């Protein structure tokens, strides 16, 4: 049996589940729309233009990235969530190296995040947020790469997390720092020294940067750097998370918890 088939099955299941929870899907649109319309509108009033474009145009790749980040990271973190335990029991007993479970859940999280991003695109497009200069193929590549990076980041945290008890902690110590230390809301190169370095080291920054390339809203790095950072990070993250997840001690405590 191929691991790819199992990875596909997990991703399909996560996507099917997303479409069943239409409330969750629509609610995931609220956050980026609030940022774009309310905060974007507010900041536009104080900062008339960033690199010649209106602040809201500058913010469009940022909120697309945000949708992908929150969608992928939360889906990945759900790996340690009790409601997922039935699925995890099915996965641990499947004839699959346990490290593949990490890859499968990452694929599911990335797929879920991509769908949310596409939905946001569909909502935003009629309002003229994407001009004629947008490169749709590169936007697709950017969204896929961002989803991959965020899902892998989420799995890296999930591999060290037994449950999602501390939801607020996850948001405050993981998702928000990743979001704020990126080019989603402001040009990375204008950040003060240490923050700029942190943002440059953040793989999510490079995902948003790819979206900036596609939407011509002032990327800070070149495209090949962005892609290289994301690919290297994702491969390394999956390898580390997979090794951690399938390490005997960690895995056994998970099995004991799941078996009850």
């Amino acid at each position, binding site marked *: 049996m191929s691991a790819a088939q199992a990875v596909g099955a997990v991703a399909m299941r996560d996507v099917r589940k997303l479409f069943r929870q239409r409330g969750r899907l629509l609610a995931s649109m609220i956050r980026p729309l609030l940022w774009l319309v309310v905060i974007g509108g507010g900041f536009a009033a104080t900062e008339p233009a960033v690199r010649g474009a209106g602040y809201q145009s500058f913010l469009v790749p940022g909120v697309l990235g945000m949708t992908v980040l929150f969608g992928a990271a939360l889906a990945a973190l759900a790996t340690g969530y009790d409601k997922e335990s039935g699925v995890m029991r099915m996965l641990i007993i499947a*004839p699959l190296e346990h490290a593949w479970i990490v890859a499968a859940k990452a694929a599911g999280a990335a797929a879920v995040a991509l769908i949310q991003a596409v939905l946001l695109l569909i909502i935003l497009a009629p309002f003229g947020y994407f001009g004629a200069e947008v490169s749709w193929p590169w936007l697709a590549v950017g969204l896929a790469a961002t989803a991959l990076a965020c899902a892998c980041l989420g799995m890296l945290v999930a591999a060290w997390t037994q449950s999602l008890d501390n939801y607020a902690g996850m948001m405050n110590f993981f998702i928000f720092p990743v979001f704020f230390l990126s080019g989603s809301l402001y040009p990375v190169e204008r950040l003060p020294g240490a923050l700029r370095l942190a943002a440059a080291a953040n793989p999510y920054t490079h995902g948003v940067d790819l979206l900036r390339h596609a939407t011509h809203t002032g990327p800070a790095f070149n495209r090949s750097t962005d892609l290289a950072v994301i690919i290297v990070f994702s491969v390394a993250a999956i390898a580390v998370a997979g090794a951690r997840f399938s390490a005997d001690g960690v895995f056994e405590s998970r099995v004991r918890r799941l078996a009850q």
Partner: protein
Amino acid sequence: MTNLGGGLAVEAIGLSKHYGAAAAVQAIDLAIPQGEFFGLLGPNGAGKTSTIHMLSSLIAPSSGAARVAGFDLRSQRLEIRRRIGVVFQGLALDLSLSAAENLRFAGRLNGLHGTEIERRSGELLALFGLEKHRHAPAAALSGGMRRALDIARGVIHRPRILFLDEPTSGLDLLNRRAIWRHVADLRSATGMTVFLTTHYLEEAADCDAVAFLNAGRIVRRGKPGELVDALGCCLIEVETDQPAEVARRLEPRFGAALIEPDRVSFTCEREPADLALLGGELEGAARALRWRRPNLNDVFLRINQPDARRRAA
């Protein structure tokens, strides 16, 4: 490992599991022939679940060796997982998916393809009486139906060995009986080996062989009928507020008593002729007196007899 092999479904030698200083399973030996219905019995915390987790390749043994479905437990874990089904104490189902979708998901995880999954799902849903609920979300099924679906999930890939870890715990009597009918039907349809753990000992009466596990060690094993027969033909039970006194008076005649806080029992080789006479001899120390045929619970209580005595003291 040279002793391991042959036509056994499960063979283990000196299998042990330690968690730090605590020994969950201590050097157990098993030889379970293919097609056997085997019960691993014992109280909570005896090491039953750790044994199932080791044999199903989920956790690594601390020491010892085993072959499951003919494959080495340490080096051929995926080969083993292809050939076993596991039903955990907790449900391995996605409650947000329908019954059919759960089976499809499990089938795909096990490398089956669409038409094969559909065919087997249909057979299993029919066997377990779930056809009408095929499209119902698992969350909407009753506890008994969810467990039946979970077992169907565990056998969708036609495993040679099915591990059932306390499959009926938390279910009412009717649902428990239904689950055992399903397992019996499955065994007669497929001939698969079933490795059961339970602490409802009466459920193990239909097993071909059982082993009693206590504090991680196998303390007795055999066919349920033979273990029960070995206790004698009957059991005399005295309900009393003075268990030690009743035991002192009757042990010279019936041999060692099993003393519990509110009762004393003795095994005997013949049906007692006159219980009323015995009641008279106890001069009001007995609240009630009866005899009955022994069962697996009595075997278990006598294995743990020293504990029972301590509790009474």
